[in-house]
């Protein structure tokens, strides 16, 4: 009769966790310590709080048992568990990323980083700053320079389906049109958006109108909706 080998982990705030060795070895860092025979007493983890460590241990438990030949966990079930597990507050998510990196738990690092990447992929730079409390340390000239040098990334081509005119517009303007906004946010990785029902002349007018709206919004005055734009927006919504 053999008892399951356990290791003791101690978080930065003094919490003690006793886990099976196989579970703890999901962390390459801990695995290294165990193999180097440094794990007789409690392993101190000064960079991880108790709350986060308990989450990491949960993840490792779930993923260790899945690599067990006796386990019947399917990939789908594991993915579903992951999705639910990662549904946490942004701050917790960041702490998990740091912990996964420090403890070198590859699967958790992948999961957490990909989750954040998926959260930000539809955001504008302004929204990113708001979300992460990042200070914009560019001067207006510097920011303009970055945008200018990489103008191709900030532009979207609106393409008329039948003819071959394309219009290069700033993404912020294109988003004025609800339909296009939805297409962009549906992860449209192409930068050319085909518009089937709109001729080039109308498209020009609409773009002019959008420009005005964006300029008005930037100058913080009330945007005035012209009748023309209302009429035009409707067929686009169709």
């Amino acid at each position, binding site marked *: 009769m053999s008892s399951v080998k356990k290791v003791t982990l101690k978080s930065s705030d003094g919490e003690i966790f006793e886990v099976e060795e196989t579970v703890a070895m999901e962390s390459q860092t801990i695995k290294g310590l165990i193999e180097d025979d440094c794990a007789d007493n409690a392993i101190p983890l000064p960079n991880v709080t108790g709350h986060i460590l308990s989450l990491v241990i949960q993840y490792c438990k779930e993923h260790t048992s899945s690599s067990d030949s006796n386990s019947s966990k399917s990939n789908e079930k594991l993915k579903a568990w992951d999705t639910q597990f990662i549904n946490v507050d942004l701050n917790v998510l*960041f702490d998990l*990323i*740091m912990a996964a*990196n420090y403890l070198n738990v590859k699967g958790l*690092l992948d999961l957490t*980083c*990909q989750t*954040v*990447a998926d959260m*930000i*992929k539809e955001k*504008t*730079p302004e929204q*990113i*700053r708001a979300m992460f409390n*990042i*200070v*914009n*340390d*560019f001067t207006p000239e510097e*920011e303009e320079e*970055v*945008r200018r*040098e*990489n*103008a*191709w*990334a*900030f532009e979207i081509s609106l*393409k008329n389906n039948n003819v*071959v005119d*394309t219009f290069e517009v700033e993404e912020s303007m294109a988003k004025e049109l609800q339909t296009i906004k939805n297409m962009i946010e549906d*992860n449209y*990785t*192409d*930068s*050319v958006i*085909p518009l089937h029902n709109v001729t080039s002349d109308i498209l020009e007018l609409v773009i002019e109108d959008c420009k005005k709206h964006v300029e008005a919004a930037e100058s913080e005055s009330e945007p005035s909706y012209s009748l023309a734009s209302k009429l035009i927006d409707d067929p686009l919504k169709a």
Partner: protein
Amino acid sequence: MLLEILYRLPCCRRAVQFKSVSKRWLSVISNPYFIRRFMDRHRHYVCKFTHVFQNTIELNVNTYIRLVSYDHNDNPSFKFDPRIGLEFLDFLPVLSLHYPVCIQASFNDLLLVCTQVPKASFFEYYICNPFTKHWLKLPPIPTDGTRTRVMIGFLCDPCICDSDSDNDREQGCITNAHYRFMVVRILCPEENTTQFQTQLQVQIFSSETNEWRNSVVSSPRKLNLNPFMPIACYAGVIACNGMLHWVCVKDKEIKGFVVFDPFNDSEQCHYIHPPIDLSLRHYVSLGVFRRRLRIFQLIYAGSFSLWELEDYSNAGTWCMKQKVYFSNMDFGDFLQRAKNIHGLDYSDERTKMMLYRDMTFLAFHPNDGDSVFLHCGNSVQLCNLRTGVLKRVYYYSSPVRSKFQLVQPSWPTPVPPLPLNAPSISN
């Protein structure tokens, strides 16, 4: 940690937009190490690609181009402005001056454009990425008033200089952040262009020296190096793996292929045998698929064949990838439409031959190793050599004198290449 998150973004556009978030984000995203991780993550990226058709092979004030871009489902979309013709390149300052201009080569998402200031005695070359609109101008090269015909080779060789470079080399180069490049001008021999030439005059620009240099290239086997001869000229000079390749012709037959590797030896050429089952008297087309050299041969009313070079050693090891006989092909409505247009009954073998004579090779499909694009009279067709199915992609009837296939990698190739000694990134 920022890097770990950002390289998992699905497309490069977003990542580049985020350069404007803050200085730290700008520094992370611009770093070559980030680009390498990004491209590694997206190594199975299905490339978007664009065909560029040009109505000339030489400097011309009336040059115009037509672009056909393909999405992930091979659906084409066109970009063509008849008013200007080269509007797609209008970020190049020289174009607003209406000098004679000509696109002369392409590599991945880069184009090599040549222009000449009227009445000046030099050529100017630009390397540009038409998607990011970044460009760089090479030092001018003096013209030699007499010779006008040249063949151009544009070679890019990615450099790897990071600590785990051995790993990179095994997996193949996966970053385009650092590269060295060369532009090779092969000058047409003054005498008869179909003459046996054991030496070639070339002018080479190297990004490592940043200057043009003249060189004389010869072959130890005394091969005919002349790429201007009919069969060789048709196939052209193809850049692959940092080397130039063209057909070696002897007595109106294909003898083999010349391989010129100026990064290692700018004065001697190598040679590779043709595939055993290549028809030596028929024309061939050369191309590249995923950094491997390929031959396509169309034998009228006979077959399409495709070979790939597996190994350069021992004078070359070829592998036949596909061969399909016309009798086994499904031409779809190609024959029916031809009948409607020309009023001829193409089920007759002789008239079929006339139709096939109009077929020319356009490019290898960059994402599908079994498919090739063909020009068939008025239309561009996509031919799957494995299934034998020919599918019309679109109609195209303007004259095409030269054509290029731009393939966009998962991260746009920087122009100029990023400097090798970029500061190392802190995570």
